[in-house]
């Protein structure tokens, strides 16, 4: 019946006037011999070049769904500014909260976590949006044009994301403090508050494993041999994941004697920095404002090595010789330069005068002469990126970026 009707309609259209284009296209099926005027369909006007061998700094702006791009080779020059701010996410209508990034070693792709945690992200009778109740994602983007090429759905509140040295595997945590508060409200035991470490095949963007690690795991780092993953847990613990076991086996170590738990943490481990030489795991604990050290051999904390700071420590960086740890911390908004052997703070680089508020992460340039420091800002206006001359202890330049930046990374392009 429908087919008959269709052909009758078509015939009527044809008979009603041959110059009517609709009469010459009787279906959405392409007509024979279609002439295309444009060789390149969907031509893009963007003139943003791909990252070159000089490197491109990439910053995730978690409260405005953008990435700030800055050319690395402009550091220390008047050209040190934001090259572009590009949108990121699956949905142009809702804010999705991009959180942290990982760059493929080959420089061809990068990965961004989507947290769906954006306070004030929207509300209505159907509920508040961006509260972290929805599942998150890990996105795969083409480094050349920042185009989304894949994604994988994970659990709510993705936190940190890192990549293996061969670029094949991603590790993504879920900083699900909402789960803790919800279950605590129901008087449920801490054992039910654990969240997963997602292990993702970076090539296919499929989940290989979801490993239950601890309550609200945030930072994750791999040992040099990549047989072990260390995870900072909000429950005053470090989770140690044996990646060689099948399934991966998890043990947990409290960061200090008399530590609290998920509901009432006393330390709040948040970030991790691994020594490239000793393999020691330096744990940044926000509440106790100290950096605590885990011995990778004994898998025990070394309380005598803890370094107190004047504010919550965040994501640091070691020099490649393992002899210096640059550790940014908040409240004062400075970078502490720490001798990891003695645990002494040798000096500090103040960033507040340069406009830094709520410092979040430092990353070293390959020559280790410059620290790229990202500061969250006040979470309403722009955050900042600072290039710091590490020898002189001075700020070489400052760039305003998007709202609540929370990670800095470097993309390397081909010559």
């Amino acid at each position, binding site marked *: 019946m429908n*087919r008959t009707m269709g*052909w009758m309609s*078509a*015939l009527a259209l*044809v008979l009603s006037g*041959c*110059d009517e*284009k*609709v*009469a*010459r*296209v*009787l*279906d*959405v099926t*392409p*007509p024979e*011999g*279609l*002439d*295309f*005027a*444009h060789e390149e*369909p*969907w031509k*893009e*006007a*963007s003139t943003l070049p791909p990252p070159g061998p000089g490197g491109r700094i990439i910053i995730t702006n978690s409260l405005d*769904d953008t990435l700030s791009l800055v050319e690395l080779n402009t550091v220390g020059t008047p050209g040190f500014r934001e090259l572009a701010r*590009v*949108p990121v*996410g699956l*949905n*142009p*209508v*809702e*804010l999705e909260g991009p959180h942290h990034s990982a760059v493929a070693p080959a420089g061809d792709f990068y990965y961004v976590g989507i947290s769906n945690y954006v306070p*004030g*992200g*929207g*509300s*209505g*009778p*159907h*509920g508040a*949006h961006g509260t972290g109740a*929805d599942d998150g994602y890990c996105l795969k983007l083409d480094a050349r044009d920042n*185009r989304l090429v894949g994604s994988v759905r994970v659990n709510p509140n993705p936190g940190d994301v890192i990549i293996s040295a061969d670029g094949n595997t991603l590790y993504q945590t879920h900083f699900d403090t909402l789960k803790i508060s919800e279950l605590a409200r129901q008087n449920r035991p801490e054992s039910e508050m654990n969240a997963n470490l997602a292990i993702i095949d970076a090539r296919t963007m499929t989940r290989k494993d979801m490993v239950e690690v601890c309550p609200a795991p945030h930072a994750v780092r791999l040992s040099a041999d990549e047989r072990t993953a260390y995870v900072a847990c909000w429950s005053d613990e470090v989770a140690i994941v044996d990646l060689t076991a099948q399934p991966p086996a998890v043990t947990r170590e409290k960061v200090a004697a008399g530590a609290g738990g998920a509901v009432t943490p006393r330390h709040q481990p948040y970030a991790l920095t691994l020594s490239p030489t000793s393999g020691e795991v330096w744990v940044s604990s926000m509440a106790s404002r100290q950096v605590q050290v885990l011995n990778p051999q004994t898998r025990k904390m070394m309380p005598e090595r803890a370094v107190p700071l004047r504010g919550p420590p965040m994501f640091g960086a070691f020099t490649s010789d393992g002899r210096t740890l640059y550790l940014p911390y908040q409240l004062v908004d400075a970078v502490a330069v720490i001798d990891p052997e003695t645990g002494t703070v040798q000096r500090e680089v103040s960033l507040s005068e340069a406009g830094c508020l709520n410092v979040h992460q430092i990353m070293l340039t390959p020559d280790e002469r410059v620290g790229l420091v990202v500061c969250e800002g006040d979470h309403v206006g722009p955050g900042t990126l600072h290039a710091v001359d590490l020898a002189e202890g001075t700020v070489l330049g400052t760039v305003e970026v998007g709202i609540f930046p929370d990670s800095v990374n470097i993309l390397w392009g081909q010559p």
Partner: protein
Amino acid sequence: MMRSLWSAVTLAVLLSACDDGGNGRVTAAEYGEVLFNDSRLSESQFNSFSCATCHATTPTPPAGRMDSGYTLYDAAFRESWWGGYETRLLDAVNFCYVNFMRGVAPLSKDSPQSRALYEYLVSISPSPSAPARPFTVVKDVVEVPRGDRARGQQVYAEACQSCHGAPHTGAGRLTELASILPEVTNDYGTLFPGVPKSLVVIEKVRHGQFFGVGGNMPLYSLETLSDADLGALLTFMDL
């Protein structure tokens, strides 16, 4: 099989009889225009939307139309779309295609349909570059002052009626999946106890299917529907 063959032969005869004296071929832009206006661009059997449902193609929208989407005249070479959150035209198109037209998979860059649609959009975009258009999403849904009833009736006719049909009856609505207004709100007291019905309607208009609302209605930004007109619409619907 035989029927298909017969159909194809018939089509060939019809088309050959329709030769306009030129090469008789349909240009890609012409084919794209047909696709633009045809909901069958989406393979979903539940879709009733075409591009033309939400977008005019003239420099200014024709009188009597208050679309949720901007006119696509001069849209092909805008700097960005969706308020700056889509920087590629195909991605912007596919966001509509998947979310509103229920397309099963995004249009590929190289399919004949996709290419033809691009050529049509280019054909109605004489400017080689055009600025981005603002798109302000109302994130937090709050009440709006009520407005003039007569204006609200006009807003209903221009913004709602093409999909939802006549008020109270739904007569002439685009699809039975579109609710009858304002009768659909009769259930809101049960579905949203303690919440004013008007607030649910405002949410639907401002958030469309997004922010956890569901369905496949497009959203109205502040630029495409002012709070004043929304308030007038609510008055017309006695909400």
